[in-house]
């Protein structure tokens, strides 16, 4: 028996062999000199997946160039910009567009106003129980979906709902709290708050407690600490959350439809009406395209000025 102990005691594990194989394969399929394109390789599936939407967008652009023929309810043969002219001429769309923009802007402001203290308390609290409770409160509404939540709001804030009951206790006559612009914004804030908190929390965690403590010890009160330390350092989170909340509220359909009482349409509702109610896909497509362009320009400008924040895309310069 002449065995060398070394040979036996160390067997090259299968997993390592596998990894070596993969590495070799990687070297063959994707040589190191291609390394500067690795980022693009990893990004490619996402670009392709969103590509599905881009192809759809091209179709939408195509159909926006045809006018509906009302004797056959088919799109006309000719290419024309008539649908865009219709939109430009109509006072309704300008008003609805303005309402969507204002609604989205207000939603961003109010959502961040509520999300900032919420995430701050959640991150900074010393009690694990409190933290957990705050997280659970955040998660539950997610699961019941936007429509049911909007319905819940309809019940609570209706003329015979809980809020009016409470107002009644202090002698206030039942108020119409629903079916107006503030109700839509309220619904959107309620819908967006969990998203915003989840996006802000990591950014706030990244701010070391010590910096705040230092500011306090130098005599800054909390408002100044917040303004000069927390908010600037949380900026990536605020920008990221603002982008998500803003784009999603700008294109929202359910809240204006359910809480607006029919007279508080956003652009998405106008698009819905054209696609579904008057069967005018061309006009609906034109509206959709205008909304996409508008949203993308706003997003582009914000990213150009503030960066993408915790959306993190392209974080490394």
């Amino acid at each position: 028996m002449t065995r060398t102990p070394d040979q036996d005691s160390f067997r090259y594990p299968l997993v390592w062999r596998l990894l070596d194989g993969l590495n070799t394969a990687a070297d063959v399929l994707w040589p190191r000199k291609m390394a500067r394109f690795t980022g693009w390789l990893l990004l490619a599936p996402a670009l392709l997946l969103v590509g599905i939407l881009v192809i759809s967008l091209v179709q939408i652009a195509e159909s926006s160039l045809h006018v509906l023929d009302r004797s056959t309810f088919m799109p006309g043969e000719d290419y024309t910009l008539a649908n865009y002219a219709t939109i430009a001429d109509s006072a309704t769309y300008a008003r609805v567009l303005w309402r969507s923009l204002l609604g989205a802007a207000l939603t961003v402001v109010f959502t961040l106003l509520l999300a900032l203290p919420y995430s701050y308390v959640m991150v900074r609290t010393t009690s694990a129980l409190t933290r957990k409770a705050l997280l659970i409160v955040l998660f539950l509404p997610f699961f019941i979906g936007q429509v049911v939540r909007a319905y819940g709001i309809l019940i609570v804030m209706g003329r015979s709902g809980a809020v009016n009951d409470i107002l009644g206790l202090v002698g206030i006559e039942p108020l119409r709290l629903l079916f107006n612009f503030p109700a839509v914004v309220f619904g959107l804030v309620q819908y967006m708050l969990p998203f915003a908190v989840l996006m802000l929390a990591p950014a706030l965690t990244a701010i070391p407690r010590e910096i705040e403590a230092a500011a306090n010890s130098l005599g800054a009160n909390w408002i100044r600490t917040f303004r000069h330390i927390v908010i600037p350092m949380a900026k990536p989170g605020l920008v990221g959350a603002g982008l998500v909340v803003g784009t999603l509220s700008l294109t929202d359909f359910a809240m204006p439809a359910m809480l607006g009482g029919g007279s508080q349409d956003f652009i998405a509702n106008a698009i819905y009406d054209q696609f579904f109610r008057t069967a005018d896909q061309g006009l609906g497509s034109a509206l959709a395209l205008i909304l996409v362009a508008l949203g993308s320009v706003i997003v582009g400008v914000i990213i150009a000025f503030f960066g993408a924040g915790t959306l993190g895309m392209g974080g490394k310069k």
Partner: protein
Amino acid sequence: MTSRSQRIVFWSLVWFSIIVLSLPTVIVLGASVTAGNIITFPPQGFSLKWYEQIAMARDLRQAFGRSIHVSLICLAVSVPVGTLAGIALTRFRLRFSSLIQVYLLLPFTIPLIGSGIGMMLLFGSWGILGSVWPLGVALAVINLPFIIWSVSSSAAALDGDLELAAASCGAGRIEAFLHVTLPGVMPGVITGGLLMFVLAMSEFLVSLLLTDARTVTLPVQIYNNIRSIITPDLAAVSSVFVVLALLAVWLLDRLVGLEIFLKSK
């Protein structure tokens, strides 16, 4: 929080948020046990008859099963794609990064009605409408920015030197990726994955356009019912969702700890 005034201001805002977030949920839970025939709050009497009714309803059960199916497909597509993209965007220097950001935010800037109609026509011309899986892909597309965001916020916090260290210890690119990068972004992957799953479970507008009566999912069923006549069985369905949500959150807490949502690394 050191000062008293800060505590008062913050906690009153937090309590306001808690009420705003929870009230509709509480109302729905309450309305589901009403003995009456219309949704009211407070409920008229107590009865579990609406739960009995939904337990008997084969349509609802099937729709629920399909929703799970769709959400799992959505996960299977979006998690790998979103993870790679999140890593690519933060760990690699890419040209035209602003343009890529605008491009990848298209799912949010295109109104869902537009995306829905567009994908309905596209999937129709590819001849894949009528199955359940295209909806899973579609939901992965429209919510993709969420998972990219959550992965890249984890990846951004990862120290790049770690990967270099691994390489200098002899790790190949694949090993470095599997043993260093991937574990580093795992919190983001879990957060993002959960978000994708939940959003797929509750999306109704695109789902409405991509399903038919044979492939209808639960949110579409709820949406259609709410728009016709609202009976407390819908509140019961939603309550089941809430219970499932609690269960999922509890499970997550046991497995990885809820604090994962607060971490940037």
